[in-house]
């Protein structure tokens, strides 16, 4: 402070004080966090930045892709022959089922017409390649190489040749992000194939998955196969999801701890099929008894509920 009551002009203008700047940017970051997590209003920014960064991302992916290509190039002829043979054998095995399926579908259509029921809608699929796992260490996501340009939309189910691997959660023009079943915020309504018991299967990170909210005397056994129940209107009914690997029943707790491992190659790379949404499930009827069932709660609400807690 000078004697006349005001500070002398600074020689070097350096803008606001560091602490003021820090507070400003921290506030801005927290505002972005809240806007993104709670209100989902920043998707346009993400879309724009991601499209702008796409060439950079491709450039970064090139060495990884190149290494993969090199490995494939040197994989011997013998391995390819062997793979070819096993695939042919598999095709023969499946052909039997496929041939019968046409017949069964026709029969089903006729019977449904007879009973005046709505016909099952056939669901289309888009084949995509898993390119890489997203770098975010706090979640389990992979990037596939098809986006809005190929008609993929957020919420579609993703399966491989064995079972469900996850759900499309974010779509960019040229790629999309699939949240795997093992992600902690991912939940999927399932039923036990053996007895039709319905439950919710939630991801548990590196531990695979957990069957939640089943009473400690629930009739589940180790080795049971869980299939989608189709109540959420996202996954078709009857897709294999997981296998029960361990059950801890403790009467001190209300629920049993049931651990499961995914059947499909959830953490592996390869080709996947993005299933179109079953059209009849987009608008679920309000009055059926099934819809009031607890697992019938839309799966899309699930991550938001978690964020709210």
């Amino acid at each position: 402070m000078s004697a006349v009551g005001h500070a002398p002009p600074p020689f070097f203008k350096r803008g606001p004080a560091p602490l003021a700047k820090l507070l400003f940017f921290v506030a801005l970051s927290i505002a972005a966090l809240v806007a993104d997590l709670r209100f989902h209003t920043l998707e346009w920014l993400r879309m724009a930045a991601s499209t702008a960064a796409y060439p950079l991302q491709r450039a970064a992916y090139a060495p990884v892709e190149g290494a993969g290509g090199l490995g494939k190039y040197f994989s011997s002829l013998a391995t390819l022959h062997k793979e070819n043979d096993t695939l042919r054998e598999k095709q023969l095995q499946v052909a039997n089922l496929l041939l019968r399926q046409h017949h069964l579908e026709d029969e089903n259509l006729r019977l449904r017409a007879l009973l005046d029921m709505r016909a099952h809608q056939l669901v289309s699929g888009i084949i995509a390649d898993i390119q890489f796992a997203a770098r975010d260490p706090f979640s389990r996501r992979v990037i596939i190489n098809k986006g809005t340009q190929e008609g993929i939309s957020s919420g579609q189910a993703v399966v491989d040749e064995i079972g469900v691997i996850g759900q499309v959660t974010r779509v960019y023009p040229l790629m999309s992000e699939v949240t795997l079943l093992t992600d902690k915020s991912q939940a999927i309504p399932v039923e036990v194939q053996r007895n039709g018991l319905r439950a919710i299967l939630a991801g548990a990170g590196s531990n695979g998955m957990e069957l939640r909210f089943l009473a400690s005397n629930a009739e589940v056994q180790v080795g049971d196969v869980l299939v989608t129940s189709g109540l959420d209107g996202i996954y078709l009914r009857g897709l294999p999801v997981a296998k029960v690997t361990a059950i801890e029943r403790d009467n001190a707790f209300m629920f049993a701890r049931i651990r499961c491992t995914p059947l499909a190659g959830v953490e592996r790379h390869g080709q996947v099929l993005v299933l179109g949404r079953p059209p009849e499930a987009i608008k679920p009827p309000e009055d059926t008894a099934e819809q009031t069932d607890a697992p019938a709660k839309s799966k899309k609400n699930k991550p938001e509920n978690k964020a709210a807690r």
Partner: protein
Amino acid sequence: MQPNYSSNRILLPVRSWFIFATLLLALLLNMIPVGRVPGIPDWVAVVLAFWCIHQTLRVGMGAAFLLGLVMDVADGSVLGQHALAYVVLAFIAGGLSRRILWFPLMQQALHVLPMLLGTQLIMLVVRMSVGGEFPGVLWFLSSFVAAAIWHPLTYLLLLPQFRPVERDDNRPI
């Protein structure tokens, strides 16, 4: 004081495009999909800390915020997670720069290590509080690797500013 690069060498002024290019290269390195391999340093954080320490007036919290947003989009994480962590990193690095530059490189690395660990800790707190998965203790290894490469990285990034050593005894400075 023992001789180090800062005491016996006069550096040329830094060029803005070089700072920009190194930050862009760090972004590119960060975008390489390595999966869950532990111990890959967060290149953007290290290079940002380096420039915040060496060029406090040029690289600061604004650049950190923008880089953080780009990293958030590239990683597919929550928008603002990297931005928050990098802004705090830039503040601390800028504030401590005069102190840190006084030390030899090995001890500089010891200063940088807690900064990078703090960056990771902020991200961990942000994500765990919104229901993320704990990535495991090995995830923190990347900060230690980054601190270990601080010595070669300093020489690499200061290379364009070094000038040839002249043996001229009559030079005024």
